[in-house]
């Protein structure tokens, strides 16, 4: 059961080959107390990572717990694994933004939290999938990219060839409690990995007969996190201010979005856009020919397909309160429109309007499905 509150303990994982979180997951699978583990795995071509569901304890070899890419939003995968009710307990290793999206999808009944345990490793950010493939071709693949991302995250000199996805460069919520947190910030090399676990995960370990020694969080962890969060927040303010300048007003917005080709990839990959009957997948906006002609006559011309601006604004109106800032929308956009920053900017406004934070608490109802008797008195 995904936890967002409760008592947490810190435990030490065994260091070295065969140990760590991967070793723990192997032991959990072997105990048969869980049916499978969803986690990032190195692809056979070794130039990429994909989420994989593993049921055999012997098949966790290619695990990449700190995957330097996010080719799909893990919450969508968790939804397909649990939406119609999980049959067996599952452990999912997800990034903080994937975890926040899972919490939102629990609220929308697209993820069944029963029998789901989510472990969130600390995240230093990711690069675009294509960047990783390109680097791998030059022998600077997964391991080197992970190292570069962590070096930059913990105050080292950033590698000029490793540029984070835009959404990651603004992200200041790169750790999460969930059912367990795999700590890395502040960990020196050679130090045994440390896992912070909630009561649900502790109970799972106990039922599997797995006993772990008490551990302590790395001493430098809080400071490292605070430093990076401040840096990211500063960068975020700058980027969002520049974006507002670029898109505010119909002329600027339409100019910034002139390259939108209406593929709707942003919607397809978004974890919050789960509706099979999405408005934009129906015929509601397909008009009778005479109406197109009338609209064309009213303006100087009518861009077809119509309703480009409408698509973006209404997608925002429908999902911005739950936007978790993962940025897969921008990664998937063939025109590289600044959608992740745009949704982040607008999302922040509407979330503040309702004092709502996506991913904060699975018991908190999303703004569109509830209301208060007295609120927004000055709205009209």
């Amino acid at each position: 059961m995904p936890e967002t509150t409760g008592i947490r303990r810190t435990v030490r994982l065994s260091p070295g080959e065969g140990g760590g979180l991967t070793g723990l997951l192997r032991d959990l699978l072997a105990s048969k107390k869980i049916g499978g583990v969803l986690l990032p795995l190195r692809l056979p071509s070794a130039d990429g990572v994909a989420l994989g569901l593993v049921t055999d304890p012997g098949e966790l070899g290619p695990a990449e717990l700190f995957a330097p890419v996010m080719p799909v939003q893990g919450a969508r995968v968790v939804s397909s694994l649990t939406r119609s009710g999980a049959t067996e307990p599952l452990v999912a290793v997800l990034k903080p933004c994937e975890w926040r999206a899972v919490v939102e999808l629990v609220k929308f009944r697209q993820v069944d939290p029963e029998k789901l345990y989510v472990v969130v490793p600390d995240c230093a950010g990711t690069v675009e999938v294509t960047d990783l493939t390109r680097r791998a071709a030059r022998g600077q693949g997964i391991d080197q990219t992970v190292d570069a991302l962590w070096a930059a995250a913990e105050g080292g000199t950033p590698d000029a060839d490793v540029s984070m996805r835009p959404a990651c460069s603004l992200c200041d919520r790169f750790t999460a409690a969930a059912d367990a947190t795999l700590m890395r910030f502040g960990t020196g090399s050679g130090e045994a990995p440390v896992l912070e676990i909630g009561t649900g995960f502790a109970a799972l370990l106990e039922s599997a007969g797995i006993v772990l020694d008490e551990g302590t969080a790395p001493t430098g962890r809080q400071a490292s996190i605070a430093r990076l969060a401040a840096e990211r927040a500063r960068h975020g303010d700058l980027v969002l201010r520049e974006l507002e300048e670029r898109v505010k007003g119909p002329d600027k917005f339409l100019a910034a979005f002139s390259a939108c080709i209406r593929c709707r990839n942003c919607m397809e990959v978004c974890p919050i856009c789960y509706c099979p009957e999405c408005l934009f997948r129906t015929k509601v906006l397909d008009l009778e020919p005479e109406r197109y002609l009338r609209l064309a006559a009213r303006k100087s011309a009518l861009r077809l397909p119509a309703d480009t601006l409408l698509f973006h604004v209404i997608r925002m109106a429908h999902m911005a309160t739950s936007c978790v800032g993962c940025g897969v929308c921008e990664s998937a956009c063939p025109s590289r429109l600044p959608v992740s920053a745009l949704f982040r900017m607008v999302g922040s406004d509407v979330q503040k309007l309702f004092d709502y934070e996506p991913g904060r608490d699975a018991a908190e109802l999303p703004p569109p499905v509830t209301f208060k008797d007295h609120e927004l008195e000055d709205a009209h």
Partner: protein
Amino acid sequence: MTSFEPKLVAFLCHWCTYTGADLAGTTRQQYPPNVRVVHLMCSGAIDPLHVVKALTDGADGVFIGGCHPRDCHYQTGNYKARRRVATIKTILSRLGFGSDRVWLKWISASEGKLFAETMTQVTEELRRMGPNPLGGAWHA
């Protein structure tokens, strides 16, 4: 040169504002003819889509009229409308698309005079604001 006549689209809830508008008519309250009324059963049926499509299709302003809080014929429709309109106005405001061209007002079935006065006020504001720039953008 013809002076600008704003086009106002008004979504009025059947039980309150639409009936209030009817009362304005039967009691011969005068108000400008710029408003195009869309009759809905409840202000809670409003989706931000309706508001934004009206604006991108050429309306200069959008008005939503519903029952006062606690008086909704369907109990809670107007509370939902209040949240939805606040959301879309926040988005329009951040993007500079003229959030002040969108109004939400509670007008009951007995408030015929208030309806007429409100239509007059809103029309005059729109006249001052000028045409909606989104309406002329063929590439929107």
